[in-house]
């Protein structure tokens, strides 16, 4: 959790360098979309205290489920502008399937189970981003 920007590539390299014996590193970066030029800025609110617990719990669930060498979650809050990086996750495993699935799992849970809320400000005004039904549906595949 941080308000400050982060360097995706540098974090990805440091994460990969910390691994030993892992054949696969998957990273994901979430970027503020400009909505075709309409977006002025995005504000990310979170729930201090609960956020840290939720991220830790999501990471622990991923480690319990897959054979991971390591995982990383970085998420910004505060004011962001188009093309800013919002967050990243990384997962390392011996095999690519585990690394991919773990990174997708981290993202799916982060999206709908970590206490973050986005508000977009365009020329037309400011609106809270609505949760998408497909993000909720995405969790189902992990509950089978």
């Amino acid at each position, binding site marked *: 959790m941080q308000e400050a920007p982060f360097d995706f590539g540098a974090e990805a390299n440091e994460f990969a360098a910390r691994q030993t014996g892992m054949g696969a590193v998957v990273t994901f970066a979430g970027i503020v979309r400009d909505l075709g030029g309409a977006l002025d800025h995005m504000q990310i*609110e979170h*729930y201090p205290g*609960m956020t840290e*617990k939720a991220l830790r719990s999501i990471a622990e669930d991923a480690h319990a489920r897959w054979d991971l060498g390591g995982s990383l979650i970085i998420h910004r809050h505060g004011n962001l502008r188009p093309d800013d990086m919002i*967050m990243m996750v990384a997962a390392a495993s011996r095999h690519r399937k585990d690394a991919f699935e773990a990174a997708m799992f981290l993202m799916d849970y982060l999206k709908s189970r970590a*206490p*973050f*809320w986005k508000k977009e400000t365009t020329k037309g005004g400011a609106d809270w981003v*609505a949760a998408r039904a497909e993000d909720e549906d995405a969790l189902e595949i992990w509950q089978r």
Partner: protein
Amino acid sequence: MDVLYFAWVRERIGLPRETVEAGAATVRDLVAQLSAREERYQAAFADITALRVAVDQELADFDTPLIGAREVAFFPPMTGG
């Protein structure tokens, strides 16, 4: 007990947190108690299917008992990532 509000729930009620005297047995009872107070609470809690709740910083549901709870938070579905 601390009650916290986030995102449009916070905006609709007009404050981020307040202390509420214990007494509600469940989250649903607390919602009824708050809704009875003022129009803005009633507006925020009008459709609880649009809301999520955390009790002591863990996701919970509206039937979760509040015995011993120190912190309850209301917010819309999360939109992280």
